[in-house]
């Protein structure tokens, strides 16, 4: 009888512990600050940039056509700039975790802006964005409200 009681208490404690950890993780994830990116929310266009290790600007992305993007309609229009002659294009990469990953925008002429679209049909109005040349790693930031 005592063994069964101890077992039940242990199971209850384990369940409570898992519930605690799960809810804490959920709360932490939902409340962690997220980076603003191409749209830092509705009506909040922002610029994202990438610099090399010597602080030279090597890729830049800006919300384009203000007033018609970052307006919460799930359709984003942006422009990407290849600002420096480094032999690489500048790429705007997009990731919907576990669902979608692609290069949406690219500029392959130094000093030229190139426009692109991202129409989100997956989940919420939020996506991870990175702008970079081919020889550097992605630095992901969150764009939302586009």
């Amino acid at each position: 009888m005592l063994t069964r009681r101890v077992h039940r208490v242990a199971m209850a404690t384990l369940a409570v512990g898992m519930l605690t950890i799960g809810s804490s993780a959920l709360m932490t994830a939902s409340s962690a600050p997220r980076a603003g990116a191409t749209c830092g929310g509705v009506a909040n266009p922002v610029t994202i940039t990438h610099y090399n290790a010597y602080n030279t600007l090597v890729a830049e992305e800006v919300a384009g056509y203000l007033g018609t993007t970052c307006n919460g309609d799930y359709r984003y229009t942006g422009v990407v700039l290849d600002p420096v002659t480094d032999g690489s294009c500048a790429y705007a990469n997009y990731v919907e975790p576990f669902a979608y990953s692609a290069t949406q925008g690219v500029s392959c002429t130094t000093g030229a802006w190139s426009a692109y679209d991202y129409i989100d049909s997956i989940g919420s109005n939020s996506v991870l964005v990175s702008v970079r040349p081919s020889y550097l790693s992605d630095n992901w930031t969150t764009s939302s409200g586009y």
Partner: protein
Amino acid sequence: MDELEWLKENSPSTRPSRDVTRRHRTQLRAAIAAEGADGGPPRRRRRPQARARHRVLVTTAVVVVLCVIGGVVVALTSEGGDDGSRIGAPAASGATTTAPTECSGPPPAQLAIPSGFNTGRAGPAAQSRTAPTSTQQVTTWTSDRATIEQRWPSDANRRPWDQSSLAPDGVSGIADDVTVDANGGAHRTLLFGFPNQPNGCETLQITVYGADAATVRSVSDGLVSSPFVSPEPLVTTSRAATAIPEVVACEANATASVTVDATTATATVDGTVTAAAFAGPTEAFASFLAGEPQLFQHGYDELRLAEGSVAYVKQVRPGAVVTAVHVTAGATGWSVHDWGASGC
């Protein structure tokens, strides 16, 4: 005595004897004890088990309530993050429940202050509406048209990165749009994320204040393009060479990527220059670069060619020359003669 009379006299008493009663009690106790050992549910033992279940339920409820309360507290203390709010918007108050982060030493990069600004002073900008914490390093530069304020680390609600989200081979930037304030002034905040910093020290915060949006945009755009003093010198190596290496074509012309192939690309660019003469080749090269902002401004290899001219080449990786500038000596001095570069 007939049979009936015998039975009447020898019938079992309706009241058991003391011995029988004692024996029955002993048997009953043994049976009860046996039932308990078998784990059966004797009625009298329900009460303690129900109490144990009650305790577990109450404990679970208490923990769940504590989780919810803790989550709400965490969410409230995290409010003011840039999710859904303007990155450059001033916080409502300088107070924060997040423990201040103290970052030792100077900021991870030296801000490239535009010409026209003073040498800087410690402390926040007069226009700032968010008081820094005692552990933030704050410097302000002022000109007759704008003010630049630097905070390191950034305000607690302006930290979009942590070390896990920053790749080690570059620096990230996020620039808010220009905000026009109620008093007619304007400001814009730029955030820069540096890898390989202690936790909480990843982000450098720059805010440009000015009398109008155009001024703030002009100054801040310059800082977005060239925010920091490069730690790399103009010329990093010097050696003899027999020829100027070929520059590589833009990668869009060398890869099979559909996305890239669908994009307009320029393989290489070049030009012949009639430029002023300088006392030395490096001065001529530096003067040329100042007029070509799309070319790397630092980190060139100097190649001393056999016929007496000098070439400056930039490689982004060994063997991948993306820029080559040829400097020759003339009667009046050194000048850039021709150059070539990748198209992207």
